[in-house]
């Protein structure tokens, strides 16, 4: 694929990146000084605790709630669980059962020999790291060595039946039709659950619950088709929400390839508390970066709630902030699936020129990122024939401008979750356009004084304005002022603030240090050993 070139001026690009870096830097203190219930649950999951009680409350939730009630979560959940393991000579999962079923009080166990606790901590941490490293290496082997990475744009389709077993049938069929990436849409509102459900699930609304068992089932199903077809099929799920770190851990554990993971989506579009989200996204991205999971950010949402031309700069600003946060978490640019969308009203004259300008701006602003391009949804009407034509234009802009992840538009968008044939038609449309316009981009050049070039520079300029103000007042204040997506959120509002806990100076979380060393992040995050 030879793409069109915009020749973006380097000075504003440099300026935008510097400002974003400072915006994010300003929040590192908040991230360093606090933990969350979800981060603590993640650590327990890494120690091998799964399962739930008879009311389907996961054991990790029971333990973290117990420690919070006792007022000791500020020390980190791992310390108490490790201590109990040493004291009772049991595995973490057995301890979890004792807490859940026999009301074992972890805080009543006398704090034991720190050397033994440290040794056990190291053993369990190493075992977890060995597992996710193995999963990562196996994927990289299959994707780049055994077989090869498919040509871009990758063809990405969704399944959303609510029943994981039915999802498998649809996902396998879609992969056989040529889809490179399968996303299992989550049940609506899962982002607001402050726990991750257990086991295989067969009922959901508008999607299927993200559970570790569902991840495992789908990974296995795609590997079957992969073997048939001698190629690796990527699997996607969604992490943004109240359980961002936990879902990242499960994704790393079960071999997921992409996770929706946005630093602001939960705050703006799901009314999750901003502190909670900012703290959670960091730990979640450490896991993704260490596991070579490509994060996908949700900038498309700015355009479904606001006007796609007017608010184009909000997409750019958010991409820059997402990139800056990801860099802080030690993520390589190629694992950044920064998002944008083809959402301009089709009735607008020369709408395609705007779309090309916006797509090229994103491409050149993040040359190494694995960009995620979202299809029209807002202006899909139920007229499937027009919808199919719009998706064709979307595919055309993508191949012309060199996008990476193509979320294939469904002609039945706004009607129902995709039928088997809808995915087929979407894949065939993409195959046709991507092949037919493969090298078209290099046949044209864009003049600096053309509409497309001027428009791209203008959007960048507007984004810089927003970022400059945001740097001045701070990201949280800027969100309070409704500068992003016209949605106003407060620092103390939204869901999940009660799950934010200020760390004690003796806080202990073995994974934070391990990830940071692995990712070569130097930072002042308290690492320590058990003291």
């Amino acid at each position, binding site marked *: 694929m030879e793409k069109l070139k915009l020749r973006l001026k380097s000075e504003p690009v440099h300026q935008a990146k510097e400002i974003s870096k400072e915006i994010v830097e300003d929040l590192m203190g908040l991230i360093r000084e606090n933990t969350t219930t979800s981060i603590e649950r993640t650590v327990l999951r890494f120690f091998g605790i799964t399962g739930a009680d008879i009311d389907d409350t996961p054991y990790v939730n029971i333990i973290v709630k117990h420690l919070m009630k006792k007022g000791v979560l500020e020390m980190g959940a791992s310390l108490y669980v490790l201590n109990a393991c040493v004291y009772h000579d049991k595995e973490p999962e057995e301890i979890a059962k004792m807490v859940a079923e026999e009301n074992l009080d972890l805080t009543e166990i006398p704090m034991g020999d720190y050397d033994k606790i440290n040794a056990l901590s190291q053993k369990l941490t190493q075992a977890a790291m060995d597992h996710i490293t193995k999963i990562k290496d196996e994927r990289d082997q299959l994707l780049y060595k055994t077989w090869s990475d498919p040509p871009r744009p990758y063809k990405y389709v969704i399944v959303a039946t609510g029943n994981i077993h039915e999802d498998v049938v649809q996902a396998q069929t879609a992969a*056989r039709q040529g889809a490179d990436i399968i996303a299992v849409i989550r049940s609506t509102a899962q982002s607001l659950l402050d726990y991750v459900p257990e086991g295989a699930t067969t009922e959901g609304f*508008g999607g299927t619950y993200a559970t570790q068992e569902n991840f495992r089932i789908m990974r296995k199903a795609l590997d079957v088709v992969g073997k048939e077809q001698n190629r690796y099929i990527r699997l996607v799920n969604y992490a943004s929400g109240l359980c961002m770190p936990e879902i990242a851990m499960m994704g790393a554990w079960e071999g997921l390839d992409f996770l929706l993971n946005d630093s602001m989506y939960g705050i703006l579009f799901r009314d999750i508390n901003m502190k909670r989200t900012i703290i959670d996204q960091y730990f979640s991205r450490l896991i993704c970066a260490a596991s070579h999971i490509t994060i996908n950010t949700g900038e498309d949402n700015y355009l479904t709630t606001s006007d796609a031309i007017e608010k184009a700069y909000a997409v750019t600003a958010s991409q820059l902030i997402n990139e800056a946060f990801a860099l802080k978490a030690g993520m390589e640019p190629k694992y950044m699936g920064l998002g944008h969308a083809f959402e301009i009203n089709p009735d607008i004259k020369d709408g395609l020129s705007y779309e090309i300008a916006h797509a090229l701006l994103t491409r050149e602003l993040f040359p190494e990122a694995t960009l995620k391009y979202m299809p029209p949804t807002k202006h899909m009407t139920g007229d499937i024939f027009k919808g199919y034509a719009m998706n064709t234009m979307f595919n055309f802009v993508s191949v012309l401008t060199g996008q990476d992840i193509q979320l294939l538009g469904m002609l039945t968008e*706004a*009607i129902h979750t995709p039928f*088997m044939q809808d995915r087929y038609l979407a894949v065939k449309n993409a195959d046709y356009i991507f092949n037919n316009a493969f090298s078209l981009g290099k046949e044209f050049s864009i003049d600096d004084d053309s509409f497309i070039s001027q428009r791209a520079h203008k959007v960048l300029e507007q984004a810089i304005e927003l970022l400059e103000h945001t740097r001045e007042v701070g990201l949280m204040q800027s969100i309070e002022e409704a500068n992003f997506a016209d949605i106003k959120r407060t620092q103390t509002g939204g869901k999940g603030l009660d799950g934010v806990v200020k760390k004690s100076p003796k806080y202990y979380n073995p994974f934070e240090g391990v990830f940071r060393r692995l990712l070569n992040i130097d930072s002042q995050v308290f690492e320590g050993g058990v003291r």
Partner: protein
Amino acid sequence: MMIYPYGDTTNDGAMQLSFTLPLKAGALAKEAAKRLVKKMGFEKAEVVSMQDLGGDFSFFVVYGHTTTGINTDDIQVVEAKFDHMDRVQVDEYIEEQIGRKLVVVGATIESDAHTVGLDAILNMKGYHGDYGLERYKNFEVYNMGSQVLCEDLIKKCKEVKADAILVSQIVTQKNIHVKNLSKLMDLMEAEGLRHQLIAAVGGPRISHELALELGYDIGFGPGTIPSQVASYIATTEKERLENE
């Protein structure tokens, strides 16, 4: 009057169908598709395209001619009737006929996380070049956003003394919207709120008929613009006050 689908000749009954069968693409699948369509009452079914979807699935496009017609004289449709005014007219109407601001509370309820429809009607910006209710001088709008519990919505309506409640439902899988809307209606009845306000529901799969069935005053389907909703609320509120 008897009518039939129109392909290229009056009353030819021509229709296009497309569907997937759980069969490997091949002669058997093609024949099965053809017979299926004929069994549905079509004459001269012609399979114009068969595509292999992989595995045991194939996709068909079939043209058929139906002999079934419909007598339009037998049909009665339920259609919401109200005068459609623009924003300025609605504001004037409220001022002259009611004399105070109307309070509107909107929400997407229960599990539904989609605010696109709600925002299109309520947000300042509106939809399709038609300003949203927030832009009107004489509406006081509370947009509660998505995933609002029915209980919370009712609490809000009481708190702000709502004249109208606007509920948007987009997700309709397994009829979840019917469940959600019924729950809200039951709660409104139980709280004695039902007859104190206008209850409107909107969404891409919502019809006026369905809304009435569920006990609401009106259902707004796809393509509805804010001034229609505004006109309906203003005129209905006036009638309601007259009947009190």
